[in-house]
C-alpha cells in the first residue's frame, strides 16, 4: 500500500470545508538528487492541530522547512500544490516567501536556547516579525512585545523583554519563541519539536500554550518524534517514515488502533508502566524473573553531598545528603529534571568526581575514600555508559581498538592480540553487532550502534556495576527500545547491576527495580518502582507524574 493510497482513504472528514489553511499535495524534496520527501500530501485546518510524527531521517523536519521555503541549499522541491489560503506558494519568489514567513506562517523551532539570538534582548527577538514586516513604530513594537510575552504566560514580561535569552529558563525561552511566532497572529503555526529539550513539567506548560493558540483558531502543524507529546495536542496524526506518510488519520484512531505495522511498532516501543515485564522491541517476549542479591550492596553511597563554588564566589550545593544502595543484579533508577543533581551523583559514584562529604563503597570496600592510584586497579569493577557515546570515544580510534583497550584493563586481560580481537568480536556480538564493525570508526556508525559499542566497552572489563547516565536519551524511540532491551538482556544474562540515570519517567519505570526521585540535589522520595509510580508520597513526584504526556487521550 502506498502512502498516497492511504491518504486518500483516510482523508479526515471535514466538518467545515472552508477552514483549510494550508493544502499540500504530492510534495517532493530532493537533496543532490536523493529524494528525502517522496510525494506526501496533507492539509491543515484552522483551529486544529496536525501532527507529523517520525524518527530521524523520516523527512518530517525537511517537510516543515519546505513549508516556509527554507528547505536549504542544493535542494529541489516540487509539489502539485502548496496552497496557503488559496495562494500558491510554489509560484512565489523569495520576496513572496518573505512576506509569508512570520506574517502568515509562524514557525517555532526546538531548543530555544539556540533558536533565539543570544545577543539580542528578548523583546527585540519577539518583536522582530513586526519590524521585518513593517508594523508599528519602535515604541509600539516594544509595547507589543511585552504584551505578547504576557500572553504566553511569561511572568514580569516587561523585565523579561529587556533581558537576553540566556538569562531566562528553558521554559520561558520556549514561550518567548512562541510569542515571536505568533506576534503577527499568523493563521498557521508550525512547531518543529517544540518541547524536546524541556523538562516534563515545562513540556506540559508549552503544550498547553499551543493548545490555547489552537483554541483561538490557529492552525497548528506539530512536528515531533514523541507520540506521547503528540497525543496531547493533535487532532490528526500523520506518521512519516523514509519520506513517506505511512499512516494518516484522526489522532485518536491512529494512536489507539494503529493500522500500519510501523505505527504499531512505534507505539509498542514507548517504555511505560505497561512494558515493564516485556521486551520493547519484541512486545510479545517477557522478561524472566529477576534475581536480586539482597546481601551486601555492590555499590553503596552514604550521605553524599557536593558543593560547587560558582564564578561569582557563591557556593551552590548540587548534591545534598544523598544515600543509596545498589544490590547485585538490580537496577536502581535515579530520576529528576535538569539541575536535580542526578548526573553529579553518578559521577561521584564513579569516583570521577570527589564528593564534598560522604562516602561511596564498592562491593563493601572503600571506594571514593581511596587514592587515585589505589582506585585504579579496582576500576574494572565499575563501568559507565554515557548519553553521548560518540564524544566518549577517542575520535582517532576504531571500534576494535576501543574494545581491546577496555579489555586490557579488565580482570582477565587478553594474553595476545589474537585473543583480544576474538574477545572484542564476541563482545560486539553480545551487544548485537558483528565482526565487520571491528574496524569501523565510531563516526561511521548509527546512534544506536554507537551506544551498543559503548555498552560493549563498559562490559569488557567484566564489571559488577554499570553506571548508565541517560544512555538512551539521544536515541529515536525504536532504537531506544532496542538498547533498553539489550541492557535488560545483559542484566538477565550476566547479573550486572545498573545505576540508571534518566529524566524520562517512562524509561525509568520500564527498567528500574527501585527508584530515587531527585530534586534540587536532594532525594525527595525513594522506593520500589511500584511504590513510586502507583503510590507517590511526595508532592513533587506526583506533579512529575501528572506532567508526563501519556498516550491516553483526554
Amino acid at each position, binding site marked *: 500500500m502506498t502512502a498516497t493510497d492511504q491518504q486518500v482513504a483516510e482523508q479526515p472528514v471535514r466538518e467545515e470545508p472552508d477552514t483549510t489553511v494550508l493544502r499540500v499535495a504530492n510534495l517532493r524534496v530532493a537533496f543532490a538528487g536523493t529524494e528525502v520527501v517522496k510525494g506526501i500530501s496533507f492539509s491543515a485546518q484552522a483551529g486544529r492541530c496536525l501532527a507529523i510524527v517520525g524518527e530521524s531521517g523520516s523527512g518530517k523536519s525537511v517537510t516543515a*522547512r519546505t513549508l*516556509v521555503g*527554507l528547505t536549504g*541549499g542544493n535542494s529541489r522541491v516540487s509539489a502539485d500544490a502548496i496552497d496557503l489560503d488559496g495562494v500558491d506558494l510554489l509560484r512565489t519568489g523569495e520576496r513572496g*516567501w*518573505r*512576506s*509569508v*514567513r*512570520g*506574517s502568515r*506562517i*509562524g*514557525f517555532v*523551532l*526546538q*531548543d530555544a536556547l*539556540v*533558536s*533565539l*539570538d*543570544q*545577543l*539580542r534582548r528578548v523583546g527585540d527577538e519577539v518583536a*522582530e*516579525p513586526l519590524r*521585518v*514586516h513593517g508594523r508599528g513604530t519602535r515604541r509600539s513594537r516594544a509595547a507589543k512585545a511585552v504584551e505578547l510575552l504576557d500572553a504566553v504566560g511569561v511572568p514580569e514580561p516587561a523585565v523579561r523583554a529587556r533581558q*537576553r535569552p*540566556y538569562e531566562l529558563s528553558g521554559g520561558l525561552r520556549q514561550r518567548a*519563541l512562541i510569542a*515571536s*511566532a505568533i506576534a503577527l497572529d499568523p493563521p498557521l503555526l508550525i512547531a518543529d519539536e517544540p518541547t524536546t529539550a524541556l523538562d516534563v513539567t515545562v513540556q506540559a506548560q508549552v503544550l498547553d500554550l499551543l493548545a490555547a493558540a489552537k483554541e483561538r483558531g490557529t492552525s497548528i502543524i506539530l512536528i515531533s518524534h514523541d507520540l506521547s507529546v503528540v497525543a496531547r495536542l493533535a487532532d490528526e496524526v500523520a506518521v512519516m517514515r523514509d519520506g513517506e506518510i505511512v499512516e494518516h488519520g484522526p489522532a485518536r484512531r491512529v494512536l489507539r488502533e494503529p493500522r500500519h505495522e510501523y505505527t504499531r511498532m512505534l507505539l509498542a516501543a514507548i517504555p511505560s508502566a505497561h512494558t515493564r515485564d516485556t521486551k520493547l522491541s519484541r512486545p510479545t517476549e517477557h522478561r524472566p524473573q529477576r534475581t536480586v542479591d539482597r546481601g551486601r550492596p555492590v555499590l553503596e553511597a552514604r550521605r553524599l553531598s557536593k558543593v560547587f563554588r560558582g*564564578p561569582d564566589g557563591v557556593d551552590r550545593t548540587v548534591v545534598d545528603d544523598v544515600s543509596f544502595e545498589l544490590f547485585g543484579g538490580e537496577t536502581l533508577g535515579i530520576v529528576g529534571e535538569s539541575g536535580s543533581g542526578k548526573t553529579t551523583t553518578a559521577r561521584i559514584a564513579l569516583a570521577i568526581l570527589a564528593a564534598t562529604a560522604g562516602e561511596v563503597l564498592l562491593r563493601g570496600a572503600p571506594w571514593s575514600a581511596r587514592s587515585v592510584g589505589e582506585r585504579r586497579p579496582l576500576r574494572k569493577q565499575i563501568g559507565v555508559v554515557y548519553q553521548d557515546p560518540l564524544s566518549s570515544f577517542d575520535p582517532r580510534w576504531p571500534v576494535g581498538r576501543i574494545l581491546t583497550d577496555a579489555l586490557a584493563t579488565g580482570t582477565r586481560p587478553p594474553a595476545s592480540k589474537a585473543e583480544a580481537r576474538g574477545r572484542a568480536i564476541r563482545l560486539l556480538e553480545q551487544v548485537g553487532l558483528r565482526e565487520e564493525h571491528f574496524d569501523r570508526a565510531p563516526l561511521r556508525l548509527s546512534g544506536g550502534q554507537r551506544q551498543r559499542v559503548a555498552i560493549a566497552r563498559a562490559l569488557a572489563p567484566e564489571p559488577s556495576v554499570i553506571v548508565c547516565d541517560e544512555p538512551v536519551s539521544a536515541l529515536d524511540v525504536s532504537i531506544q527500545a532496542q538498547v533498553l532491551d539489550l541492557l535488560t538482556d545483559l542484566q538477565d544474562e550476566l547479573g550486572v547491576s545498573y545505576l540508571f540515570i534518566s529524566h524520562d519517567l517512562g524509561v525509568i519505570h520500564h527498567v528500574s527495580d527501585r527508584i530515587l526521585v531527585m530534586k534540587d540535589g536532594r532525594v525527595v522520595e525513594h522506593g520500589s518502582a511500584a511504590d513510586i509510580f502507583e503510590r507517590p508520597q511526595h508532592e513533587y513526584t506526583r506533579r512529575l507524574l501528572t506532567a508526563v504526556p501519556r498516550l491516553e487521550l483526554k
Partner: protein
Amino acid sequence: MRYLLKLLSAVAVVIAAASVTFFAQLAVPGDRATTLMNLQTGQDRKWTAEELAPLNEKYGFDDPIVVQYLDYVTGLFRGDLGTSYTQKRPVLEVIGGQLLPSLTLTVLALVVAWFLALGVTLLTVRRGRFLSGLGATWEAMTASLPHYWVGIVLLVVFAVQLRVFPVIGGTSGWGTVLPVLTLAIPLAGFVGQVTREEFEQVLAQPFVTTARTRGMSDLAVRLRHVLRHAVLPAVTLSGWALGALISGAVITENIFGRPGIGQVLVTAVDTRDMPTASGVVLVVATVYVVANLLVDLAYGAIDPRLRRAT
C-alpha cells in the same frame, strides 16, 4: 577591585616588556660606547679605553648592571624614559613625535581592513560555491602578501603610473592612503579568514533559521544577527594586530617616507640606543595592553554573556 587588578597586571606586563628589552640589549654582543664612537665617526673599528672613557663616564656604562637597571626602572615610575644616547633628547620626546603617525597608520589600517574584510565576507560567505570560493581565495591570497611587495606595487601603480596618490605623502591625509592600504590589505585577509570561518558556523545556527522564518531577507539576517556573533575572533585578532602593526609598519613607512615608531626602533637597535629601544617597547606594549583592554570591553559590549564571565 577586579579592574584595579587588571590595571596592575597591565602595568606589570608593560614594565616587564621594557625590562626584557633592557636586559636583552645588554646581552647583545658589542660595547655601547664603541658603537657610539663608531656611529659618531662612521667607522667600524675598535677604540682604546681612553677614547671610550668619556662616553662610559657620561652614560654610566661602567656602573653595575643592577644599578643601571634600577635607575631605569625608577625613572619609569617618574615618567622618565631616559635620554636618547644618539639624539640627545628625552626618549619620551623621540617617541612622542613618531607615535601619532604610527598610531594613525595602524588604526586606520585596522579600520580599513575591517571594512574590506566584512564587505567581502558579508557578500560571499555561503553564497554558492563560486562566490564563496572566490571570497575565500581572495582572503587567503591577500593574507599571503608580503607587506613591502604590496607597498611597492601600490606605489608604482597608483602613485607613479596613475598619479592618484602622492609618492612621498608623509603624514598628509592623501599621502596616508597608500600606506594604510599596504597594511590593510594583508590584514583584511586575516580578519576575513577568521570572520568567514565563524560566519559559516553561525549561519548554520538555529537562530538564523528562526530569523528567516520571520521573513527577514538574507542580507538583513547577516547584518542583524550573524555579524555580531561572527566578529568576536576578528576583534581578538584586532587587539593583537594593533600591537603588532605599530612596530611592523616600518617597511611601509620606509617605502612611503613616513615617520613612525618602527624606524625609530630599528635605528635604536642598530645604534645600541638602549633607552630609546626600551622606550619604544614600553610604548608598543602599552598600545598592545590598552588595545586588549579595549578588546575586553568590546567583547562585553558585543556579547554580554562574556561580561559576567570575566
